[in-house]
């Protein structure tokens, strides 16, 4: 069962650049970015149980840092991406220290406020981000080559995606991953067992920010333009929807959520005005009838 699923996924990954149109490859690239973003958000929400929503800000930091380093210094890949990811991780850790004094809805609001401030900075810091005009990003440099189109970028994005999924699996099975789950389930039990709940949450925040930063660094590989308007609530909710519909805490579930909710707008494109309505209805039905998402549904039908 699991083997078959893996084989299907592998076949799809290989088939995309061979069989698909340019637009199809572009779509696959955006799904890969969303996948890394969603897995990262799920580490904080699904694994450690912290409802924090600054994720989109760390993504933005990754995009701008990578784009600007490529523009100004023509640094070769993956240097700009690594610098961007480090920066995003650092900012995430700095935010986590004060924010994690708060819980639940207060944590959610405070971290969202940070994301709003970050968006305002992307919008207003003209000298660096070129503000409301958006930023044109030069093609990625890979040693002597320049990555011009979506097909050039696709294999690199797949490799990054695989590494990030692998890292998530390692985390799941590590003591740190178990500590995150324990903090999620019961903080008293975690504390009494010798787990530093606060440090565990801060580390989860940092790792989550790192994923967002890397996802941000993936975007300039196939996109030549970023506008701060795309780094707001709408994108955040989009990613959150993928995580929830897929199933909090399950990597495969989240990835399925990314594919389903990522492709749904494409399938509904001909419906025009009705599109938003149907998207909303699918989301509502999913939350009502699949409380643990696609992962929960798969689990139930298997047992």
């Amino acid at each position: 069962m699991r083997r078959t699923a893996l084989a299907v996924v592998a076949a799809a990954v290989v088939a995309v650049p061979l069989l698909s149109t340019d637009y199809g490859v572009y779509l696959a690239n955006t799904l890969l970015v969303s996948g890394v973003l969603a897995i990262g958000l799920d580490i904080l929400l699904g694994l450690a149980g912290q409802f924090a929503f600054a994720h989109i800000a760390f993504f933005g930091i990754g995009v701008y840092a990578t784009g600007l380093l490529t523009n100004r210094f023509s640094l070769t890949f993956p240097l700009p991406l690594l610098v961007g990811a480090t920066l995003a991780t650092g900012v995430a850790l700095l935010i986590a220290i004060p924010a994690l004094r708060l819980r639940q809805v207060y944590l959610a609001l405070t971290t969202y406020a940070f994301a709003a401030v970050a968006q305002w900075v992307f919008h207003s810091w003209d000298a660096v981000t070129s503000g409301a005009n958006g930023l044109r990003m030069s093609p990625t440099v890979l040693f002597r080559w320049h990555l011009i189109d979506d097909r050039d970028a696709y294999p690199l994005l797949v490799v990054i995606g695989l590494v990030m999924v692998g890292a998530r699996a390692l985390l799941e099975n590590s003591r740190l991953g178990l500590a995150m789950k324990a903090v999620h389930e019961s903080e008293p039990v975690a504390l009494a067992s010798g787990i530093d709940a606060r440090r565990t949450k801060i580390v989860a925040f940092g790792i989550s920010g790192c994923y967002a930063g890397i996802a941000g660094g993936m975007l300039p590989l196939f996109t030549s333009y970023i506008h701060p308007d795309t780094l707001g609530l709408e994108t955040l909710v989009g990613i959150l929807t993928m995580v929830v519909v897929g199933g909090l805490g399950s990597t495969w579930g989240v990835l399925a959520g990314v594919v389903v909710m990522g492709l749904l707008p494409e399938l509904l494109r001909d419906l025009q005005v009705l599109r938003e309505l149907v998207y909303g209805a699918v989301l509502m039905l999913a939350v009502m009838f699949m409380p643990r998402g696609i992962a929960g549904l798969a689990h139930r039908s298997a047992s």
Partner: protein
Amino acid sequence: MSVALELQGVEVRFGGLRAVAGLDLHVRTGTIHALIGPNGAGKSTALNSISRFVTPVRGDILFEGRSILRFGPHRMAGLGIARAFQNLELCGRLSVLENVLVGLAAVPSRGRGADRAAAMELLDRIGLADEARVPAERLPFGRQKQLDLARALASRPRLLLLDEPAAGLRNRDIRALDAMLLDLCRRDGVTILLVEHVMSLVMSVADRITVLNHGEKISEGSAAEIRTDPRVIAAYLGRAADVAA
């Protein structure tokens, strides 16, 4: 005989309420010491101050001779103090095995395989090995309490704090608990501080009993001494029969 745990004039306040009022307590190494008293006497609060979930406003708490007040609750397991919880407090959606693995957090890992083997050994001892993969929340009540105990024991504590381990258990399970506590103490040398309402358990396992009322110690001694102490009987009022049982 050495003292494992010493409380010196410990006072805990919740707003205007003095939950624990200047408590002195000596728990000798390798003994089972029970803390009893009517509801609201401050027993659980005293236990919570030792496991550092609450902080006293006055007094000091020493474990094996050194003060533990400057450490947070997550440091206790590493120092050798483990606790179980009064109300069911487990990682409900994690498996039985994972719950015990959480209890191993304070012990340096000897690798994934060795950690799992150690956890399975503990589950075997309390008879939960067959349910290792079941989510903890699916176990019956009594089994969940046993699992909490197993989680606490995973860190190989020298001092075990138990908050009403017998509450809600059937008589058969209480007898098993009785045997297990004696075994832990006599065979493994674990010092146990027990808060408990079930007097039959207290009377049969406790080497020494401290009685609290309104946050103060009103009596201390062996089971035989406590049973006949008029202050204890007065504190329990109509429940004197319980103490005599």
